């Protein structure tokens, strides 16, 4: 049999629309100057990684998503994860908490404690962190429209542990623009929501310098259907929108850019993801340096959490997701991520069980300790294909960013529904390709087990959690100083109505055990609510 010619081979087109040839060589990167485009790790433009020694010095941070039910249960799970060698916490909140509803709100019915821990007042967060060494860990709080309240609560909890604010390390997810595109926990309209983020960045840069006030999430945009190029491009458009908001407050780019963090998705084609991150690091460095005039190299580094990719997991044959998780961990490590959080194998249908969470943690530990992934930095750097693909991805990401600018910038593009429409159209096309078998998905459209019945087991919902939580809420409302609460809420209203930074009055309210719902209500009254564009 004769060897097939190239043009007889099946065409390979990546999700981002890039055509892949079977072989690459030096001619494909002959215009790529090593110093300018690739360079050394830890040096501008950071294509190969943001630290000179990367994992040789220290492995990636391991941070599994966890939290459910009451603060007490969550506290027990946190302690267990830390005992197992996890080095940071990633806190899951239930939907009422994420949407600023108290557990006695009628809209919270049957949702209290369902997909994460429930928080009504400072007391709940105090319980969740009882006997946890806050000064030794970094804590990621997965919360968005009411992130200011959660930040205030966390600061007060740390204070009560005797830890000064300048020692606190952590992140509030606090990326509202992606909530309008995917994930869906939005409350207020776009402009005031971005103002709240600006207030938090301003406050943290002055008082909590080791804290990341927001983490821009390409992740959820990709989970909603975006291509890897759209994921990176939209994340950058979002991040520059927040930067512009903060720059209005007479802070310089170097005052806060070193604390900008990103959260990205990993599922899909291995090489495309690796190139996405290398291209993203290079492009971000250029944007921060050239467009915003940063002088501090640390401002120019794309710091990220990666490893999750729920959209790549399947309900069918769920154990296969353990294998997918291991590949995702490998991709993340080859991509030079700072923090890794894997989707547990049961994530396609529930929040992680204890067993699944431990397997994810061990997957990362095996990769870090047994496979040589930490021996040398950016082992794929210099590969003809990877460097060529990195160049192609960078061009595509820039083109996609220009389209958003043409649509009037990210704020307008989200208010009009342009981005939501682009992303959902992509999700539809992708689903059609999977159903037609054009995109192979093992267990779904290939190697299907006919007799298999989908094994969906939700994290058991415990209605007692809501009952107990409501009792606690009632008790604390009776015990707290209601005049203090009233004054704090008035101060908050005044700050929201003017351009006074809201963090000081939010802290005051939180200290008085004002509820999350009471604080949110003031914001709603002043700011109004987001009207979702529903035309697709």
């Amino acid at each position, binding site marked *: 049999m004769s060897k097939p010619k190239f043009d007889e081979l099946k065409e390979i087109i990546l999700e981002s629309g890039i055509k892949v040839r079977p072989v690459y060589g030096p001619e494909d990167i002959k215009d790529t100057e090593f110093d300018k485009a690739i360079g050394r790790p830890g040096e501008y433009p950071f294509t190969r990684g943001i630290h000179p020694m990367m994992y040789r010095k220290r492995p990636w941070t391991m941070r599994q998503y966890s939290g459910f039910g009451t603060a007490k249960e969550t506290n027990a799970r946190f302690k267990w994860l830390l005992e197992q060698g996890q080095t940071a916490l990633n806190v899951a909140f239930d939907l009422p908490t994420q949407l600023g509803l108290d557990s006695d709100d009628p809209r919270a019915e049957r949702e209290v404690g369902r997909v994460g821990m429930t928080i009504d007042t400072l007391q709940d967060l105090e319980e969740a962190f009882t006997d946890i060494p806050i000064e030794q860990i970094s804590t990621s709080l997965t919360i968005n429209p009411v992130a200011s309240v959660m930040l205030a609560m966390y600061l007060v909890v740390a204070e009560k542990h005797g830890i000064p604010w300048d020692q606190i390390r952590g992140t509030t997810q606090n990326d509202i623009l992606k909530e309008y595109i995917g994930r869906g926990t939005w409350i207020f309209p776009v402009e005031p929501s971005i103002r709240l983020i600006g207030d938090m960045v301003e406050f943290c840069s002055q008082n909590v310098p080791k804290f990341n006030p927001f983490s821009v999430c390409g992740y959820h945009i990709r989970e909603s259907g975006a291509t890897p190029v759209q994921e990176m491009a939209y994340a950058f458009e979002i991040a520059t929108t927040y930067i512009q908001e903060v720059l209005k407050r007479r802070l310089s780019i170097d005052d806060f850019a070193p604390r900008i963090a990103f959260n990205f998705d990993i599922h899909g084609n291995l090489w495309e993801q690796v190139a996405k991150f290398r291209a993203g690091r290079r492009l971000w460095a250029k944007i921060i340096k050239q467009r915003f005039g940063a002088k501090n190299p640390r401002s120019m580094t794309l710091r990220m959490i990666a490893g999750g990719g729920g959209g790549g997991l399947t309900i069918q044959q769920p154990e296969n997701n353990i294998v997918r998780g291991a590949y995702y961990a490998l991709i993340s490590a080859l991509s030079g991520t700072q923090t890794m959080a894997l989707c547990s194998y049961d994530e396609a249908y529930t929040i992680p069980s204890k067993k699944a969470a431990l397997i994810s943690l061990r997957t990362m530990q095996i990769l870090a300790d047994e496979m040589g992934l930490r021996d040398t930095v950016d082992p794929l750097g210099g590969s003809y294909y990877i460097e060529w693909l990195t160049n192609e991805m960078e061009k595509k990401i820039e083109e996609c960013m220009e389209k958003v600018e043409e649509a009037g910038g990210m704020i307008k593009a989200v208010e009009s529904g342009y981005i939501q429409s682009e992303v*959902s159209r992509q999700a539809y096309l992708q689903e059609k390709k999977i159903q037609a078998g054009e995109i192979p998905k093992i267990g779904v459209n290939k190697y299907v087990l006919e007799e298999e019945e989908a094994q969906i087991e939700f994290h058991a919902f415990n209605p007692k959690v809501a009952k107990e939580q409501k009792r606690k809420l009632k008790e604390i409302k009776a015990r707290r100083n209601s005049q203090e609460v009233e004054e704090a809420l008035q101060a908050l209203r005044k700050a929201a109505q003017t351009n006074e930074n809201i963090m000081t009055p939010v802290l005051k309210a939180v200290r008085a055990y004002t509820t999350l719902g009471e604080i949110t209500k003031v914001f709603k009254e002043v700011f109004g609510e987001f009207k979702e564009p529903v*035309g*697709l």
Partner: protein
Amino acid sequence: MSESSEGKRIRVLIAKPGLDGHDRGAKVVVHTLKDAGMEVIYSGLHKTIEEIVKTALQEDVDVIGLSIYSGAHLPLSKRLIERVKEEGLTDKLVLVGGNIPHRDIKTLQEYGVAGIFSTGADLNSIVEFIRKRIEGKNE
């Protein structure tokens, strides 16, 4: 084409009840039904059952499809069916999609849900199901 026997296009409301923000599946179904020639109204997120019933009335839809990923599909579906009955909208076809465990399918059917489409359901089968039930009903 997707018309009832009276010659009017089939009208569908795809709704997201409760606090759950997973709307990828709902939106994929919206695109699918639109491409199949149906009139589709998408509710947007965080709707109460009351709001969904009101929209169904105002828009005079033939089909109400709920998309639920939070695990609260049983109480939400039950309440929708109760409200649909109270409003005398029993001619409406009620569908439920999302993360639906196999063991809950029978319960949902007992409530009066006509079709259940779990994650990964064949998109064509949703189109076919609606056509068959709506066009068949009017013959």
